[in-house]
């Protein structure tokens, strides 16, 4: 009988202890927890990839004729328009307009310019460059008879 009572008391005590532990965990879990939402920011990285420019047409066309005193506008068409392209214009390999963003050059001819001329147009950007040449002829104006 004593042994039975002793076991009974021990079991009851254990239950009480376990009950307390369970109650403690329940209470701990009942404590409200603050769940913080994530925050984000966006940064946009801007970049442009450029290809080497390619000249698709030249003005004046190869074999064009002009009279002395004419103003010849030298220009070209590039495969795509971009502010990053620079142009350079030469006559007989003498640079008349060095590298700049100006896409044309005006040549005012005179009598001394009579003859055949080689015009060179160059374009470039950070990716590469292209060159085209064209030949034109400047005639002397006929002198009226006196």
């Amino acid at each position: 009988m004593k042994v039975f009572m002793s076991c009974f008391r021990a079991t009851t005590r254990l239950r009480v202890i376990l009950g307390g532990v369970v109650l403690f965990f329940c209470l701990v879990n009942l404590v409200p927890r603050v769940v913080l939402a994530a925050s984000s920011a966006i940064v946009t990285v801007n970049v442009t990839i450029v290809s080497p420019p390619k000249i698709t047409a030249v003005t004046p066309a190869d074999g064009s004729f002009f009279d002395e005193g004419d103003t010849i506008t030298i220009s070209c068409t590039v495969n795509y328009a971009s502010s990053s392209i620079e142009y350079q214009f030469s006559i007989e390999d003498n640079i008349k307009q060095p590298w700049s963003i100006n896409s044309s050059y005006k040549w005012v001819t005179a009598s001394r310019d009579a003859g055949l001329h080689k015009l060179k147009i160059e374009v470039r950007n950070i990716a590469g460059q292209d060159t085209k040449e064209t030949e034109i002829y400047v005639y002397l104006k006929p002198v009226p008879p006196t």
Partner: protein
Amino acid sequence: MRKQRFIVGILGVVFLSGFVLLSAQAAQTETIAVKVTVSPSISISVSSSSISLGLLSAGATKVSTSAITVTNNGTGVNETYSLSLTNPTGWTASQTAAGAEIYALCAAFSNVDTGIVWGMTNHALSTIPVACSTTKFAGDQNGVAVAYNATRKLWFQFKAPTSTVVNTEQNISVVITAQAG
């Protein structure tokens, strides 16, 4: 006689009880429970919403000339950052190497750009958010446990596609996400 003693006893007990009660009232204190709820919040700010790398030729590599300053402007908590990106139309981000219509965008926290040893393994961004660590997206700074009001400088390195048909400006969105920790 016994009855008188009993009455005296009762009176004595009542008297002493009153004395004890009076004494207890004199020493009585009240307790006011002051309950405070701390509400920490997560928040970050960036010094600029965009950064321009300008014009590049195919296959080129460029590091941003300036950094974006990222600030923990939340309240009361450290923040750890995660980084990801969104591909622009026509291009795909790689975490190994650039290729045809394939680019790589790397990011690193560093006080100065010279403090970064760029590497695809630790710095390349992807469309999946990746948490910062002491090596991931790290230069001479990192995005781990950034204290309240602390700042980090974020640099970018871009590896252009080796070839592309896209010659217009591309916009790559980099998302910086802050979480407690």
